[in-house]
């Protein structure tokens, strides 16, 4: 559950998450988010999310102009995991929220430091 009055959600990320969960409680478990600790290129940061048993997964960020990034909906042939490249305007947190098959929600977040670089 998002603590009331939490200040870090300056771009409305808590409201955006609440819109995805319908305000339901989110557990910090059962969800894996793989991000680079330092991103060479903030224009294309690879993010991998894995949530066994999930029906839907949504990705958010707390430092971009808009909090929503992408929402995945998985059919039976596709295990609930995906990789996507996203934009990060600056160093910030990436947050993944999953809706499980039983209707509960899981959540995790990871910080990414954004620099520029990648040269010989």
């Amino acid at each position: 559950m998002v603590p009331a009055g939490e200040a870090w959600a300056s771009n409305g990320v808590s409201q955006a998450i609440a819109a995805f969960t319908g305000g339901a409680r989110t557990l910090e478990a059962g969800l894996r988010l793989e991000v680079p600790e330092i991103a060479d290129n903030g224009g294309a940061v690879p993010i991998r999310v894995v949530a066994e048993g999930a029906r839907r997964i949504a990705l958010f960020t707390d430092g971009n102009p808009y909090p929503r990034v992408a929402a995945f909906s998985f059919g039976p042939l596709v295990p609930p995991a995906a990789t996507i490249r996203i934009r990060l305007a600056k160093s910030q947190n990436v947050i993944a929220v999953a809706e499980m098959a039983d209707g509960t929600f899981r959540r995790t977040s990871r910080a990414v430091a954004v620099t520029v670089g990648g040269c010989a």
Partner: protein
Amino acid sequence: MNQGEGVMSQWKGNNGLSRRQVLATAVAASTALSAPAVLAQGRPRVVVVGGGAGGATAARYIARDSRGAVDVTLVEPTRAYYSCFFSNLYIGGFREYASIGHSYGALAANHGINVVHDWAVSVDRDKRTVGLAGGGSLSYDRLVLSPGIDFKEGSVAGWDLSQQNRMPHAYKAGSQTQLLKAQIEAMPEGGVYCMVAPPNPFRCPPGPYERISMVAHVLKQTNPTAKILIVDPKPKFSKQGLFEEGWQRHYAGMIERIGPDFGGDKVEVRPASMEVVIDGEVNKVDACNVIPAQQAGRIAALAGITNDAGWAPVVAHTMQSRADGNIHVLGDASQQGDMPKSGFSANSQAKVCAMAVRGALTDSKVYPARFSNTCWSLIATDDGVKVGASYEATDEKIAKTDGFISQTGESAEVRKATYEESLGWYSAISDDMFS
């Protein structure tokens, strides 16, 4: 030295000098009065193979700083040197072809360097001689090899050197660069330019991507519906963030890069039908620039000083070959550690090598090795970026100690100043090699 007399007779005058040495020394005596006229007899001899950023700089610094005490011969097949650095700017229309060409005349005239225009085709490490394609041989006390790169055969399926006129590499500057530029200009409206990029390690890490920028710059003006396809076996490349930002800003929608995630590492070219097959998918192209995998210039392998990867491992402190202390290897051909293969790096390594060679042969002072590199790349008109680093010698390798890189989102003024700075650098390094 123990040369076969028959071999040497066509090269040596009666005092042990070759005819060309006699000529060069005569020129030197008339123009470079500051160089003391040390008798050639008994002077230690240095042979430098390869007249690029490594070899020309090393020859010049050894000859200049020893003030005639070391006999320096530079072996280079071409009479005019066209620099790989800035050859992309010629493709982009920012430089005249003639402006990247340099002659070796001043090295002979100003420093008494004996410039031999021939191919070095063998090295006898026991006798300490270098064989030349023209039939002669040169003896040395120290040999400096700076032969640049050669291509690994079979690294791109369907391509070998016999196809280089249909699908140029343009990765050794000269007529190949002119050919590629002509092919880009001859592309049909809306045609496809394809680059097959090389795997690591290779000469000039940002080079292929600066070239893409220059090709896009030309096509945007003359053929704006044309497309650029990069087939790349590498997941990442040098200055990637800066290039991709620049491509988005200047050439949006024109450039597509196919990395290994989409089969960029599984490529076959068909020069006859101008097709590029990417992971089984056939693409018709109109111009195709194949930059194959690379290794040290052949003479390094012929000298027997290269490793399984095809590069010549060196001792960082002196640039001496790990296989033979009488041989130094510079620039692209060397495997030294953290420095990128670049003209700037080769020039920097050449100065360390020159000092070490001079110290060994003339008992002059030797200071601790230090290296540096900066690579400028041009993305579009007045939009230059750069990356640079400092390095030191450790017992294992040349190790990076510090560095900087241009930032995305820099102002137009900063980018323009960076480009102008690169012009100043080109002028200075040209002088540092050839004046």
